[in-house]
């Protein structure tokens, strides 16, 4: 059971890390700048926030399968199907739009006059960006929490691309599905409690970071 929980944490945590590293800067850029195609990009992003995990799972499955466009390349960097790496790929695709979209919305919510004001006070453009990110910290924490929640709770995509192989790709959600279908409700409920407890602890850490980690600018 610890092994299953550990894999859940590893897969969803890595997917979250990738999404935050790419999504927060991109979301910040979209929230602070306007350019041709901006509205279209936002539409795509918001649509992406609601992607059904099974559809993403299917898409990644087709891409990575041995006869698929990426799988047939047989390259080292392309994850193989039924491995944690494939599950991370699928989950990162699911939560990247969520992290990016919420970050963008958080920055759009900051008073537009503040930027002018900060420039007027002598901040460099980089200092302005940092300050605005700190101003939007509550929204960005929500973006991270929403991304993590979605990844941890997600079952369709990891089931398809991971295959729920015991000791290899079985995570909490896929294990719950299996135990429930076998009629092992005690076990399923225990796994469910572990999943909830994990989400609680991680969100607590995220919110602590948001409150404490306030940069001086």
């Amino acid at each position, binding site marked *: 059971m610890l092994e299953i929980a550990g894999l859940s944490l590893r897969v969803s945590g890595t997917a979250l890390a990738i999404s935050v590293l790419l999504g927060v800067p991109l979301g910040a850029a979209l929230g602070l700048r306007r350019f041709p195609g901006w509205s279209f990009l936002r539409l795509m992003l918001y649509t992406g926030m609601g992607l059904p995990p099974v559809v993403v799972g299917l898409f990644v499955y087709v891409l990575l399968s041995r006869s698929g466009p990426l799988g047939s390349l047989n390259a080292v960097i392309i994850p193989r199907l039924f491995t944690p790496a494939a599950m991370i790929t699928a989950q990162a695709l699911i939560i990247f739009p969520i992290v990016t979209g919420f970050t963008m919305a958080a920055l759009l919510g900051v*008073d537009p*006059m*503040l930027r*002018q*004001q*900060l*420039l*007027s*006070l*002598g*901040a*460099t453009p980089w*200092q302005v960006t940092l*300050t605005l990110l700190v*101003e939007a910290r509550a929204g960005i924490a929500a973006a991270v929490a929403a991304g993590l929640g979605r990844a941890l709770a997600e079952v369709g995509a990891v089931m398809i691309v991971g295959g729920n192989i015991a000791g290899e790709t079985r995570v909490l959600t896929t294990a719950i599905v299996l135990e429930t279908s076998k009629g092992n409700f005690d076990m399923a409920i225990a796994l469910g409690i572990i999943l909830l407890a994990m989400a609680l602890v991680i969100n607590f850490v995220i919110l602590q970071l948001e409150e404490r980690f*306030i940069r*001086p*600018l």
Partner: protein
Amino acid sequence: MSEAIFRLRNLRKEYQQRVVLDISHLDIYRGEILVVVGPNGSGKSTLLRLLNFLEPATSGEIEFMGHSILPGTPVSLHLRRQVTMVFQQPALLNRSVLTNVAYGRKVRGMPAQNGAMTRLLDRLGLAALAGNHAPTLSGGERQRVALARALAFQPAVLLLDEPTANLDPYNVSLIEGLIRDLNREQGTTIVLVTHNVFQARRLGHRVAFLLNGQVVEIAPAEQFFSAPQDARTRAFLNGELVW
């Protein structure tokens, strides 16, 4: 008071082909309080935005501290940091009063606290509020924080855009008193924009009347109010509509 810190030459600003500012010639002297009066939409705020280098002019030249700035030439950080503006609606950081006031010092790498900062907070009645969360302040307190934040790093030029609009008499006199003292004690050059003729009379060394983006008249305050040369200035001072 003879040396010009700003020299504006043939300065034009257009938004979508509409000319909002067209100043053929304007000098702002080091250490003076220049008050710019004019009706809404006369280009007062645009003038301040250009003086603060927040946006480039469409054409013309701004000479600042001996450096010529043309549209398209980037303004060095050092020059930009000599000027700051207090906006009509202060946008404060969602942080403590002290963090807000220290912001301009922090971005310049100056220590957040020093004796002058403490005196400034005291002077503006903010000492007791230093730890308070800025969004919880009243309108007058917010404007005083905005002023303290602009003064904390001792800029050479302070631009004020209707700094006391919508404030009660107590806050108005507190802010006006500070502006006057700051100019006298530290020699800070101040450009204040207002449509309040009485405020212009109380504070200005020189007063300029801006109408439709053009300087109609500029004169020492005494002369501006007692013997305005232009009929449009007289009409504005008498509270009549000018177009």
